[in-house]
């Protein structure tokens, strides 16, 4: 399958500050490539560079095999959906949908047909004569989607299109965008800082950190095998626990013996200092000790509890060691409750403490101990 989008060595500077650094990325035909990262990481700048709204300092951009970095935005055959909708306030919904077609001199008959198709797909019937000010946020974003759809571009660009909507509408429109993408098979570049959007919409996810692409892969691959501590901490909700430690004889030792710590046996790998262990809160099992000295392994104390309805987030402490666990909604821990934790060694991610990179071969090492065996204390 050919590349609908090919970005090579793209560097962008804005106001003397390097916002993107040597970005190389591609999207296959029909793929939804999601750019994921925190605010200020350069993901929107990358999108705007592809759109032609930002001039790169170096690098090339090809859309459909055609180099476009010297072309005006209107000549790149891309359509963009903005976070702010960017609907023309003085035009009706129909006027907004027809606007790009009129500018590109699409014949009236085809224009009408394309608008009618978009209206049908996005359920905009009955809104055509309204002005944007008379629409709700969800309706405005649908019109913005329609304005992009009628152009039938080679590449769709989405710049955090759901960020201004409330949670319910966001979920609705997310599903609609996913359905539209599946139905039309269009190539799209989608910017978001919302990992739920990234995970559900993306064919692949590109995670950006400080203007650099740090990992590209299928959503589940990025989630299961984060390439760096940054990705590990950013992808997944609640965020992964990242704890300094070391490996001795296949056992992961977390925390410092003097201030309390945990040992997780069966992690494997050579002895090594200065590592960072990543443990997802959902992989931490905690049970309240039935009494003094109850349970198995070191006792962690509940410091804070957040009931989210679907689950219960608990901050656990053992000396200086802090660990977050996501427990089933039926759990009823209270601050001050003691209890041991259970962490399966194959769920532990190991990273180099100095570079933050994932340690090769450190993932899912076959456990020598039963998966549900609790860790043993080393303090």
């Amino acid at each position, binding site marked *: 399958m050919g590349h609908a989008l090919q970005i090579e060595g793209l560097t962008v500077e804005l106001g003397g500050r390097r916002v993107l650094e040597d970005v190389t990325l591609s999207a296959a035909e029909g793929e939804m490539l999601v750019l994921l990262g925190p605010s200020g990481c350069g993901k929107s700048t990358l999108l705007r560079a592809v759109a032609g*709204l930002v001039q790169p300092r170096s690098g090339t951009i090809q859309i459909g095999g055609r180099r476009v970095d010297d072309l005006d*935005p*209107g000549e790149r055959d*891309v*359509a963009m959906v*903005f976070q*702010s909708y960017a609907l023309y306030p*003085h035009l009706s919904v129909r006027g907004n949908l027809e606007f790009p077609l009129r500018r*590109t001199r699409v014949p009236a008959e085809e224009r009408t047909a394309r608008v009618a198709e978009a209206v049908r797909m996005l359920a905009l019937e009955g809104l055509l004569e309204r002005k944007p000010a008379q629409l709700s946020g969800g309706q405005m974003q649908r019109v913005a989607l329609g304005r992009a759809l009628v152009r039938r571009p080679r590449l769709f660009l989405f710049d955090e299109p759901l960020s201004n909507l409330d949670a319910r509408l966001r979920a609705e429109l997310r599903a609609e965008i996913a359905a539209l993408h599946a139905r039309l098979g269009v190539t799209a570049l989608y910017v978001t800082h919302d990992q739920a959007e990234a995970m559900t919409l993306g064919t692949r996810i590109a995670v950006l950190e400080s203007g650099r692409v740090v990992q590209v892969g299928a959503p589940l691959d990025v989630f299961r095998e984060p390439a760096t501590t940054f990705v590990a901490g950013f992808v997944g909700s609640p965020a992964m626990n990242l704890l300094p430690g070391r490996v001795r004889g296949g056992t992961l030792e977390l925390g410092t013996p003097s201030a309390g710590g945990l040992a997780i046996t069966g992690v494997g790998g050579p002895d090594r200092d200065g590592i960072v262990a990543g443990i997802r809160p959902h992989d931490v099992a905690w049970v309240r000790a039935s009494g003094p000295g109850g349970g198995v392994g070191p006792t962690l104390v509940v410091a804070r509890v957040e009931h989210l309805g679907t689950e219960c987030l608990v901050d656990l402490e053992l000396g200086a060691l802090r660990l977050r666990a996501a427990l089933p909604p039926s759990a009823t821990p209270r601050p001050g409750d003691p209890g041991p934790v259970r962490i399966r060694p194959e769920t532990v991610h190991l990273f180099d403490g100095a570079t933050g990179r994932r340690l090769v071969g450190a993932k899912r090492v076959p456990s020598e101990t039963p998966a549900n065996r609790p860790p043993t204390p080393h303090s």
Partner: protein
Amino acid sequence: MSVAIPSGVRVEHGAARAALALLAAAAFVAPLAMMLWVSVQPPGSGLSRSDTGGELAFQNYAHALERMGDFPNLVARTTLITAICVVGQCLTCSLAGYALARVPFRGRSFVFALVIAAMLVPDQVAAIPRFLLFRSLGLVDTILPLVLPAVLGGAPLFVFLFRQYFLTLGEDLVEAARLDGCGHIQIWWRVMLPLAKPMLATVAIFTFLATWNDFWAPLVYLVSPENRTLTLALAGFQRTYDTAVEWLMAASAVVAAPCILVYFLAQRLFLRGVQVAASKR
């Protein structure tokens, strides 16, 4: 801590505001009322007459228009000059304002600084160089010296106001239009101008009033009697010994009527434009 204000104090406060507003309104309305009153006094009575005898001399208006000369031509010429200035000012100042607000180009800040600096230069300072320029171009005694400055965007205040207004419209709109295939001229014409109606109304009214009532520029540039404008014709009423005040007021009322009418028709848009221009950006 919140302090409850007794309702009596609020009423007094409101009454004081209303009284002040009435005073201010009276200060503005009084000259107009005086003009209208004097314009219907019998000739010769003027401001000194205490007894009108119940007779209002509406025929003053007919006499005044007759004395002004070729009134239809005066109106036509003044209207033409005003219309060109209003349209020209709106178009060129908005175009310059758009460029300064939304078109990135090298030296934009410097150009904007020049616009601001130009606002500080009084018109009178440029009057003589401008006259010499138009005389060297052979344009004296034509309407061109009266309209060219407006057509060429020569009102830095309006350029500034448009720039401020366009900055309040989101940049996303410009970017969306660029992606939809528009160049900057199309964006200005198809997106920005339709959204700038309040500012257009403000600039149009200011320009209309300034041009319609302009006495200085027509006096300097228009020499031939057949090229006169309404304000020059009004000045013709003033004589050393026998100024017909009643006729002058009648003619003034006729000349001022379009200004008052235009302001009332576009009042709402005008106020919106002024509010936006005054907002901090």
